[in-house]
């Protein structure tokens, strides 16, 4: 298949692996930021092709994994209301809150629907004027433009029965949080190609300078990742710390101006809590005052409530690259995709689920 097979070519993959062997002289630890990259690495076995000096650790870029438990619990409560049609991307509906997930809400009679685009919710809202349509707006900068567009259109169409439960997070503050942690061991980053396709990569340049760390904007196919690793290792070996763009076929330095404008129109930067990590300043998006009427948290006036994370779960350390999934004592024993203790085991992009699926022996 065109634009797929070229980037999965075994001979080219071996060439990159060999090129890496030729340039690497000491051990390096790199983090791929995005869960989609983690998934590709274990699914294709890319790390098996790398020389032993290179360690890949898995980053916080799995939107399902970092969505705080309180918000999932709020989603479950809203979805349980009889007048609500609760819409979500597919992989959020299996994430357990305190005791149950959205699938269970559906099984118990709640109207929970999987949509492919938040814009689908507007049609549902028009078709069901007597119901409240709530979309679970989860994700990084990648999904923010479409979610912003849904709110923007809802306002211009005068739709009153549509709202967003927002849990948007941003990549650069998460990278900074990892780099400023005393236990950090990451020496170079593969930045998430899709995020940069929207946002560009100018905002990574101060991070690369300040922390003396190479950042390579990287795609999601095996050759993308191998090339991203090669570019990153080259920088490390040469003592450089720059932002480079491996994913040039999709990413421009300035990103997608129209998408960025739309995000800015609808959202503002807010502090956000990251599951397993805690609150990070200026690390998320929330609706602007002008769009506050579309905020499901306000519309349904849910008071805060206590939720308890499993004490055995080390997903916070996994998400920061401090530990790898197999290093967790609960991995595969107390914790599996059927009985997840934390979100990194639930989402198909979560590092623990990826290891469980492809690596457990």
């Amino acid at each position, binding site marked *: 298949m065109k634009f797929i097979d070229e980037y999965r070519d075994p001979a080219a993959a071996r060439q990159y692996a060999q090129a890496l062997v030729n340039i690497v002289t000491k051990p390096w630890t790199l983090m791929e930021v995005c869960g989609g990259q983690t998934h590709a690495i274990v699914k294709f076995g890319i790390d098996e092709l790398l020389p032993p000096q290179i360690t890949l650790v898995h980053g916080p870029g799995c939107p399902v994994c970092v969505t705080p438990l309180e918000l999932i619990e709020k989603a479950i409560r809203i979805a349980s209301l009889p007048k609500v049609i609760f819409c979500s991307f597919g992989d959020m509906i299996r994430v357990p809150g305190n005791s149950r997930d959205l*699938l269970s809400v559906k099984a118990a009679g709640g109207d929970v629907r999987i949509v492919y685009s938040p814009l689908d919710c507007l049609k549902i809202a028009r078709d069901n004027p007597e119901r409240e349509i709530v979309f679970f707006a989860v*994700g990084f900068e990648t999904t923010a433009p479409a979610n912003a567009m849904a709110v923007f259109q809802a306002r211009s169409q005068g739709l009153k029965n549509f709202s967003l439960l927002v849990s948007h997070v941003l990549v650069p503050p998460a990278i900074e949080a990892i780099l400023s942690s005393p236990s950090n061991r990451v020496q170079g980053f593969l930045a998430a190609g899709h995020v940069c396709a929207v946002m560009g990569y100018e905002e990574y340049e101060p991070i690369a300078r300040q922390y003396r760390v190479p950042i390579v904007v990287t795609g999601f196919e095996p050759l993308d990742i191998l090339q991203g690793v090669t570019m990153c290792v080259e920088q490390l070996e040469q003592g450089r710390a720059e932002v480079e763009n491996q994913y040039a076929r999709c990413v421009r330095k300035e990103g997608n101006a129209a998408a960025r404008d739309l995000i800015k129109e609808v959202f503002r930067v807010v502090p956000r809590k990251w599951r397993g990590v805690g609150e990070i300043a200026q690390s998320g998006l929330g609706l602007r005052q002008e769009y506050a009427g579309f905020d499901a948290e306000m519309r349904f006036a849910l008071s805060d409530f206590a939720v308890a994370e499993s004490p055995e779960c080390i997903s916070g350390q996994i998400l920061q690259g401090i530990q790898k999934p197999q290093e967790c004592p609960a991995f595969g024993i107390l914790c599996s995709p*059927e009985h997840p203790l934390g979100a990194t085991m639930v989402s198909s992009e979560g590092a623990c689920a990826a290891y469980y699926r492809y690596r457990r022996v």
Partner: protein
Amino acid sequence: MDHENKNNTLSFACPIPISQYPNVLLAHGGGGRLTHELIEKMFIPAFNNPFLEARHDGAVLSVGSQKLAFTTDSYVVHPLFFPGGNIGTLAVYGTVNDLAMCGARPLVLSAGLILEEGLPMETLWRVTQAMQRAALDAHTRLATGDTKVVDRGKGDGIFINTSGIGIVEHDLLIAPASVKQDDVVILSGDVGRHGMAIMAVREGLEFETKIESDCAPLADIVLAMLDAGIEIHCLRDLTRGGLASALIEIAEAAKIRIGIEETEVPLLEEVRGACEILGFDPFYVANEGRFVCFVPPREAPRALAIMRSHPLGAQAAIIGTVAGDKKGMVTLKTRIGATRIVDAISGEQLPRIC
């Protein structure tokens, strides 16, 4: 209160053997791990008998000197009509295929129809005609049936259950237990068509070429191999959970490791493309006219030739072999040459966020 129910092996005091979910989820019917759990923890222990212990698509029973295969399946597909077939064709072919996977020649089928009040009579007639044509194609007959109607809103147009009886005319034990080290795994054709055809209609996705369901009756192609005296060790049609789930079930039941090669599995370009867009793994996507066949290595070339000479097996391919280690798992050599395990999915595949 066990003492009050001494005579009932399944008393109300028995704890429900699956406590993870208090309600049935869609995923319990998805053919993945939750379905497997339901069968292993609830149904097999509850009904406890040697036929179920075989864990095959149908039961094979001896009647006098004859061996009969008996199987049943229910069909709840939405939409009722899709490119390449409809619920009626599925209901006939699906049960015929379960019989075929026992190595049986289908004799007769039963059909139980559960209709929703308000269903257009014309729809019912189209489905009925499709069932009749499918039965002709599969050289079987619908010998008995039943009809029930439920209130509007309590069904989804039509639900169909079919059961089938077939005759077993060979002495092979076609079951996971017969799978041996070095056996060759042959796949009858490209995978994932049915699931993506349904998905495209259900979700309003459009592709340049229309993906048609692969639904087809598999008895002829299997009987052609049996008639040629091929020593078949195991057969399994690929249904809900796709190629991966079928292989995992066999590997777990036979306590062997099956090693397959990603690049050997035939895949239609359109199916691959659709899966890429939705973030699905085509190895877990549903099929209705494909099967895997386990044969000893010496039989593989002949079995492959017979399959390829049949229109439904024109793209048949050897996709892997059975390894000696008693792991009960499936491993995959990836496109770029690394090896990973192929794991059972918990429920249905869900489209990813990004």
